[in-house]
Structure formats: C-alpha cells, structure tokens
C-alpha cells in the first residue's frame, strides 16, 4: 500500500461563500507523492471533501502523478480560465465546473483541446460537445424540506404543489421558502434560466416567491443547513448531491425530486488548450468515464443515487421523461449573454426587492 497523503494548504472555509470580486481560490489540496514528477492542476467548483476521494482513487494506480486540487467559485473560475485562455498562459490542466453555461462559452471561445476515445464516444450526445466538453456527473435539482415543520400532506411533489402551498393569504410557508440568489450564484442562475426554458410554471413560481417574500440567498450548503435548522421550511432548486450528502449526516431534512420535471446537471469537464499535462489529463477523463471512475463518482454522490434508486428517497420514483438533463449545447451561451442576463436579472430583482 503506497503512501497517500493529502494536505490542506489553505482553507478559507469548508463550505464557503463564493467571493464575488476577489479572484482567489477558496481552498487548495494536494494529492499524491510530494515529489511526483508530474503534477496535474485541477480547478473545480466541486468541494474538495466531495471530489477528493475520486482523485485519490485515480492516483491509487499512478505512483508518479500528483494532483494540485484547487477549489473555486464558479464565476471566478470562469473569469480566470478565460483570462488564461486569452493570454495563452498554462494555468489549469483540467477545469470542472457546475457552471456548465460558462464551460460551454469557454469551449466556444476555443479554450479547450479536443479528445476522443471509446469512453467519450459512449457518452450521450447531450453530455458531449465538440469532443471538447464532457458531462461527468448527474446531479438533480431538488426540493428540500424540513421533516418536522412540513407535515406529510404538505410535502410538495411537484412545482404545482409548491404553488398551492404558497397560495393562501395566511400560508405558513410565506417567508419560509428559500432559493438561490441567482445574482450571486452561477449555479442558481443556471437552474433558474433552465427553469424559465422548461415550463411556464417558473413565471408563476417567481410571482409566488415575490408575493410571499421568499428568501433568496447564497449557496447550497447555507440553504440546506437553514432548512435543517428550521430557518426555512422548504428550499427550492437545491443541488441534489449536496442535499443527499447532508442528509446522510442529518436526517432532519427530506428530499423531493419534483415529478413534473427534474433538472439534472452534469458538471462539465474540459482539458485546457494550454494544458501542460495533456496526456495525464486525458487519462483522468477516461478514468472518470470508466466503470471504476463512475463508481467513485457514485460514492461521492456526484452521480446521484436519487436518480436510479427504484425506491428513491422518500419512496419517490420518477419517470425518465421527467428528467431533464441540462445538455451541453451552445444554446446555454444565451444564459451567459450579458444583456440577456441583465434582462433576466431585472425581472428577478422585481420579484425579490432585496432584504
């Protein structure tokens, strides 16, 4: 058994707030032998605690490779990668982000290098673009609720149920529903944008949120903790993998995959065009797509068991048509268009006048 050690070089916070302005990584970890001749630079929005074990599995068979794991906020990661790409500076070898619209835009701007293998070809077309961008995870956007504060009959199975809960004048859920602040969170914006494309329910939901003074706040973990502690009764559009992970330690929360439709996010991976360790980066990609890598991702809940389990969480079962993967297509660039975003946010701000 070879020696494997992991050092936390810098910890800003474990489940940190994404800093909006300062371009600094939230956390850095190093995996593999200290004197490894080849050190892969991995930049990702995924938490070290979640994705670290996957990296360790990868390194288990490779004694001469190390991984420098940098955890970033999605907006910062996007800006940094774009800057590196335009300057031709070799920054990261691999970038993995949940802000898939940002990744699509980076690929559109020729920041990625192409790769094709038996494993990448096996990916469904929606999870692969130009052979430069690949979706490696499957994470649903879920509704999280507090088991004590939400009685059985009130658990919203669909968005319509949620609308019904918020309809009465004296709804006990008024002001107790939380969702992402989409101005702050890239992921929240992406989900909201995908919702707006998916169904007209989103307009009604937005209107309800505004009327009942729902809370828009930042970051998956804050929201989930808020639900667990009873600050919020229900949280809408929370990333399933985080919720599931949290639930394993704290069963005060329940998880629902809305059965009208459930968005499924696949974190996108690209190999940068200026990657210094392209071969190893490709090997890492192939590893993630292999059965071994898939198993590791499943253990890390990044390929969500919620989507496959017949019983599911809380006996929930979804028809496969209700699953709406957010495909890696250039259409996602619309989400990132400055003026479109501005228009979209203007409408959002009208709903949430601010604290």
């Amino acid at each position, binding site marked *: 058994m070879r020696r494997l050690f992991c050092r936390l070089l810098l910890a800003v916070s474990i489940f940190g707030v994404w800093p909006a302005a300062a371009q600094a990584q939230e956390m850095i970890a190093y995996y593999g032998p200290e004197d490894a001749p080849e050190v892969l630079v991995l930049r990702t929005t995924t938490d070290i605690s979640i994705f670290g074990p996957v990296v360790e599995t990868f390194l288990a068979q490779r004694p001469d490779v190390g991984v420098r794991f940098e955890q970033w906020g999605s907006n910062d990661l996007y800006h940094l990668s774009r800057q590196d790409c335009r300057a031709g500076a070799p920054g990261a070898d691999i970038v993995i982000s949940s802000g898939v619209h940002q990744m699509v835009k980076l690929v559109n701007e020729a920041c990625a290098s192409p790769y094709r293998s038996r494993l990448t070809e096996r990916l469904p*077309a929606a999870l692969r*673009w130009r052979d430069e961008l690949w979706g490696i995870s499957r994470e649903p956007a879920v509704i999280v609720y507090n088991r004590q504060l939400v009685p059985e009959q009130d658990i919203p199975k669909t968005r319509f149920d949620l609308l019904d809960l918020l309809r009465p004048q004296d709804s006990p859920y008024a002001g107790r529903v939380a969702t992402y602040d989409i101005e702050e969170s890239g992921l929240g914006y992406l989900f909201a944008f995908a919702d707006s494309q998916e169904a007209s329910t989103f307009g009604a939901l937005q209107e309800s949120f505004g009327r009942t003074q729902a809370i828009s706040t930042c970051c998956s973990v804050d929201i989930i903790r808020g639900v667990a502690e009873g600050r919020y009764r229900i949280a809408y559009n929370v990333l399933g993998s985080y919720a599931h992970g949290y639930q394993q330690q704290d069963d005060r929360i329940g998880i629902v995959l809305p059965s009208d439709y459930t968005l499924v996010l696949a974190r996108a991976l690209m190999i940068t065009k200026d990657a210094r360790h392209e071969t190893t980066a490709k090997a890492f990609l192939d590893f993630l797509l292999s059965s071994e890598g898939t198993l590791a991702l499943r253990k890390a809940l990044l390929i969500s068991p919620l989507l496959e389990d017949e019983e599911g969480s809380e006996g929930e079962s979804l028809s496969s048509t209700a699953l709406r993967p957010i495909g890696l*297509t*250039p*259409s996602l*660039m619309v989400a990132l268009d400055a*003026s*479109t975003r501005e228009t979209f946010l203007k409408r959002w701000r009208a709903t949430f006048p601010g604290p």
Partner: protein
Amino acid sequence: MPEFFRRFAATSLTARVALGISLLLIIGGTFVSLAAFAYGREAARSAYDRLLLGAANNIAAAIEIRDGVPEIELPVSAFELMAFAPDDRIGYRLIGPDSSTLTGYDEIALPRGRRELEDGFFDSSFFGEPARFAVVSRRFAERTLNGTIRVVVGQTLLARDAMAYDITTKALYVLAASGLAMVLLAAVVVRSVLKPLEKIAGGLSARDPHDLTPIDTSVPKETAVMISALNGFMARLDRQMKSMRHLISDTAHQLRTPVAALRAQADLFAGEADPARRDKIVERIETRSASLGRLLDQMLSQALVIHRGESARRARVDLRDVALDVFEDGDHEVLSPETDVFLELGEEPAIVLADEPSLKEALKNLLGNALKYGRSPVRIGAGLRGGQAEIWVKDAGEGPEPGTIAEIGGRFNRGQFARQSSAGLGLAIAHSVADSFGGKLGLEKLPEGGFRAVLIFEAVTEGVS
C-alpha cells in the same frame, strides 16, 4: 500515331467497347464527381445559410426598446436553430446605431467597405476557425431611439463540411453503382451483338467448299448487310462456276467432232497413195483446221465475254465508238474480202454503261455471222432510237429460217446456247453480252428486205453518270 491507328483498327470489338466505356466512366465520373462536390458544397452552404439567417432574424425580432435603451433577451430558439449544426461554435454580435457592441463578441468584425451593409452573408474566422456569418439589420424609429441595429450571427463550418462530404460521397456511391451497371450492361450487349457474327463464322467454316447456296439471312439488320453482300458474292461465284462448267463441257463437245474429223482425214491421208487425192485430202484438212481455229477463237471470246460480264467494271461507252473500232479493225477484209461492208453511225452519241471489249467481241461475232451466212452488202452501225441505244449488223440476205430463230431463242433461255454451230455460238456470245449489261439481242427480218441482228440497251442520258 499511324501505328496506333493501325493497331486500333485491329483491336477486338470487345476491347473497343471496353475502352469506350472506361473512357466514358473516367471522364463522366470525374465530371460528375466534381459536379457532386460543387453541388454538395452549395447545398450545404444554402441550407446552413438559411439557418443562420433564421437565427439572426429571430434575434433581431426579439429586440425591444425600453426607455430608449435596447433591451435584448436572446431567444434560445435562435440558438437551438443553430444547434442543428451540433458541433459548430457560435459567434454573435449585436451592433447598435452608434456602431458600439450591444452584446456578444467584439472580435467579430464586419468586413471592411460594408458600412452601409445590407443584409447578407460574409466569410470570416472565429477564434482561429473559418466561419460564416449572416447579417440582419433592424430599423427602429422610436421617439427615443432612431437608427439601425445590426445582428451578426455566425457559425464555424464543421457541419457544412460534413454535409457537403456526405452529399458528395452518396453521389459517388450512386455513380459507382451506375458505372458498375453500365459495365455489366455493356458486357451483356457486346456478347449479344457478337453472337450473330460468331454464328455466321461458325456456319461458314462448317460449310462444304462447293456449297455456294445463300446463307440464312435471319440475322440482325446490321449483319444482314454483310450476309447479303456475302450471298451476292457467292451467287456471282456460283454463276462463274456454272459458266465455267458449261464452257468446259461445251468446249469438249464442240471440239470432239472436228478433231475426230481431222483425225479421220489424217488417217485417210496416210493410207492414200494417189497424189491428186492426197492433195484433196490436204486441202480438206486445211479447211477443217481453219474452221476449227475460228471455232476456238469464238469459244475463247465467249469465255472472255462470260468472264468480263461477271467481273468487269461498267463504264460509259459510246456504241458508235465500238462500231467504228470493229469496222476499222478490218477483220472482214481478211475473212471475206469479196463482201462489201459499210459503216452507218447515228448523229447523237449512244452512251451505255457496259464493258467495251465485251461489246466489241459481240459485234465482231455478229459481223462474222453476217459475212459467213448473209449476203453482201453488210452494214454495221450504232445509234439512238426512241431513247434506246442500238448497235447492229445488217445484211441483204434472208437470215436464218424463222424456226431456227425461235429454236435459238429457246436454247438461250435454257442456257444450252453453245451446243450448236458456230453461227449459234456467235449469237450466244452476243446474247450473253446483252444479258450481262441489261440489254437484249434482237434478230429481225427487215420489211424492206434483209436481216438485222441488233443489241439494244438502255441509253444513258448525257450528264448523268
């Protein structure tokens, strides 16, 4: 080069067809491939250009002016339209009335010299990859904003190239298939075309050398020409063979009697002691051998006439020239010096298509008959009468008995013309000459007295060859 042509002339038909087909396939194939490639490119270009234009229009339609500021919410449908080229990168740029970028990629530059650009397309590059762009303008005339907003939307060319490649390869598959079909078809056609030839060749080589009967003409029209030519040739050969056979048997028959007579005289001569009688016998032998010589002459000339009648080329001959030549040859002065011979020629040329030596031979024989059996004076002549050319010999005698004339005519018809006296032989020669050149022999008693033997032919009108 002549070497090449000579070799080509000897090339087999199959090889020629193969050469033709392969030339056709190579040239046609190259041409069709180029056309298919051009068509594929054009088709892909226009198909994807329309998508681009649709997307650009879609975006342009989504622009709204609020408080004097363009409010843009890019329609996802526009991008989904462009996602029909799934792997192509998308570039877009919205340009405001003041030429500033409202949103999108600053990197996309409009081509120079198109400031007053109308809607249309241009080729450029997008992050180092060749791309094609569509431009759509939308005019606004609001209180707060007046001017044109231009929407530029573009895509890289992967899908276009793939489609062009796809169309081209499919066209090439079709081309290859039809080429193969053509080759097979050509092989079948060549085989079926050559089959009659093989049949004819097989039939000919299996034939008995003496069998000159016509070949079965139930063959394709094109080869029937050859067959009928072959049959014509064989018929001629057959006629020649027949005449030769007749000639030989006639000659044998004709010669046997005088030669036997000569031998008898010679025997007599050997057994005769009386000089006076011996002289008489010698005299008889002389007469006999002279007449045998004439007979031989006539038979040879008949052989000549028969031979030439079949084989000589027809030429334009003036019958007056023939009569003049025979007259001037002066044979009659040798044969029968005591007979008066006159020449009577018509005023107009009597042109016929015939062989001059044959005509002369015929005339000489008729003249010979007249000198021998007729009565002086004898006239020979030629001329036109009623559109027909005539050449004739007249004498003042009675001519043969009418029965003899009829009998002679019958024999001609039965082809036994030669088994008779030398007079009959002369007539037979004249008859076969007339027959060979489409004329006829006339023997007539003249109302004013005398006898005329005449050869009548269709006259050739002057100026017509």
